[in-house]
């Protein structure tokens, strides 16, 4: 992302493990989140996302391993760390007999905050103004999520940990939350760690994605990989990878490409020159095994990794693409 200095690690899990009897909910999970990132923790239902977040917030005790947030080992009563963390777990709770305003006021009092413009700003950010005098018990699930997010933001946290934050929101609400999280990360430098099973949603805002499946971290995909995975590319199967790289760089002037694996080069731009690339490679003594445009994106990648379809979406028979999965 154009940064040269290594950003500070603000969340780190080391060998994080949680077993419930024989069920291995999370297994030896290592992840790191850097300051300013929007880290999406992606996985299907039951993959271990919520359990991981609970361990991060000291709501569940790890069977093994540990979590460090802002340099502090997370445990119950890690008060110093909690002062700098805002969190909202799946299905944000609220005191149903109290109004939205009272719920927020109570949170503000509990946090020892003085009433200031930030509280009003949070109300505006989370679009809660028109519900302020409504009892929380009468709110829709989506508005409860907004209230939960508002409570999480009240003390201007450095880190936001959110478990399925758009659960229950309508498409407009999802877009609003997405924009809000982006704004919090870019304007206020808040690090966002969010879990989701909705790939389409997170790939629009995440700067890094961690894919968890059956309690195991399968892969962490960085910003550049994300961009690549979401772009079309020309994949050329070559007989000599090293030479192909040299030819593409020196003779074709291509810069935006990557060696996918031995014998396979992916070019991410200049597709109109595909014929030229093939010709020059052949003329330079590189055998072309295959050459095709690929439409694979992060979704296919996710499906391939987890061995199934993306949660909440059903394959469209007319658009199936064989064993690789399907496209929306």
């Amino acid at each position: 992302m154009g940064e040269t200095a290594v950003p500070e690690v603000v969340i780190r899990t080391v060998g994080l493990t949680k077993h419930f009897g024989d069920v291995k909910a999370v297994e030896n999970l290592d992840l790191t989140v850097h300051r300013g990132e929007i880290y999406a923790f992606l996985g299907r239902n039951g993959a271990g996302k919520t359990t991981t977040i609970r361990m991060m917030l000291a709501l569940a005790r790890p069977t093994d391993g540990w979590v460090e947030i802002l340099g502090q080992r997370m445990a119950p009563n890690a008060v110093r760390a909690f002062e700098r963390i805002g969190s909202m777990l799946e299905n944000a709770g609220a005191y149903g007999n109290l109004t939205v305003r009272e719920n927020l006021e109570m949170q503000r009092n509990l946090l020892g905050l003085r009433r200031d413009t930030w509280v009003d700003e949070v109300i505006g950010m989370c679009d809660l103004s028109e519900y302020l005098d409504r009892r929380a018990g009468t709110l829709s699930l989506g508005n409860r999520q907004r209230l939960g997010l508002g409570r999480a933001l009240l003390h201007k946290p450095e880190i936001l940990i959110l478990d399925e934050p758009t659960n229950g929101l309508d498409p407009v609400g999802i877009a609003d939350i997405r924009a809000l999280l982006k704004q919090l990360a870019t304007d206020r430098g808040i690090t966002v760690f969010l879990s989701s099973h909705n790939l389409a949603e997170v790939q629009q805002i995440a700067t890094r994605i961690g894919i968890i499946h059956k309690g195991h971290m399968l892969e962490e995909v960085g910003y550049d990989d994300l961009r690549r995975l979401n772009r079309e590319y020309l994949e050329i199967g070559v007989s000599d990878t090293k030479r192909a790289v040299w030819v593409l760089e020196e003779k074709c002037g291509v810069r935006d490409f990557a060696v996918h694996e031995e014998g396979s080069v992916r070019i991410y731009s200049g597709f109109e020159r595909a014929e030229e690339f093939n010709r020059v490679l052949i003329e330079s003594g590189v055998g072309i095994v295959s050459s095709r445009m690929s439409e694979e994106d992060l979704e296919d990648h996710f499906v391939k990794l987890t061995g199934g379809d993306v949660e909440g979406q059903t394959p469209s028979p007319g658009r199936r693409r064989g064993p690789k999965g399907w496209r929306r």
Partner: protein
Amino acid sequence: MMRVLAAEFLKLKRSRMPLWSGLIVLVAGGLGLAVLPVLSDPATQAQIAKGGGVFAKAVAAGAYSPTWTNYLLIGLQGMSGSWGVLTFGFVTAYLFGREFKEGTAKSMLTLPIRREYMVLAKMVALAVWVLCLGALSVLVTMGTATALGVGGFSWARVLKNVIDTLGVTTLLYLTLPFVAWFAMLGRGYLPPMLYSLAVMMVGNALVETPLSSWVPWNMPLHLVGASWYPVPPSALTAGSWAIAVIFFLAGLAALVWRVDHADSAV
């Protein structure tokens, strides 16, 4: 700590539970006492005597004759051995169980506040609530006796009843941390209510035995007696009070241990 305490009281705003618990005291206390004149009717007494059993014995002994002394005593016994145990259990279950029922436990436990303070604040709110219910019970008893025109009023008796009510409320309160523990263990209302029902039944079963003064949830009945057996009031020794306090502290420790060590926010 004061912030958490204030929050505990704010959580009760517009909640119907304080009203419901007050209604239980009004109905259980008031209606229970309103039948005393009926029981003192000679024809009714004769019928009860025919039925035999402990109740007949109690009626024959004059335990249910409508005097101020009996009204004050029976009101207190109702609290010690039946509705008080259940109502206080209900209130405790609500205070601790609602955080799980309403899904707020997870946000509570991720606040930058020591978890022990949260437990202590709830215990303070609980103490205020049960004291209010105890005071209401005295008022209901006095109101019922006055409304029925019962004779033999004396302020000295009322004062003794207030002191005894305080004693019973304290003894019952000392048993409540374990009710709260069950609310946290069961993450809701049913387990603590079942526990309260069980200890109420055990308390009644033990009231005639020598164990009566040593079992914490039986001590209130031991202190004020049980007219329905009949068992007379009996003072508690320092040893009994020590057991009650130790039971309370053990319950409190279990509660704190649970919020600090268990996977608390499912």
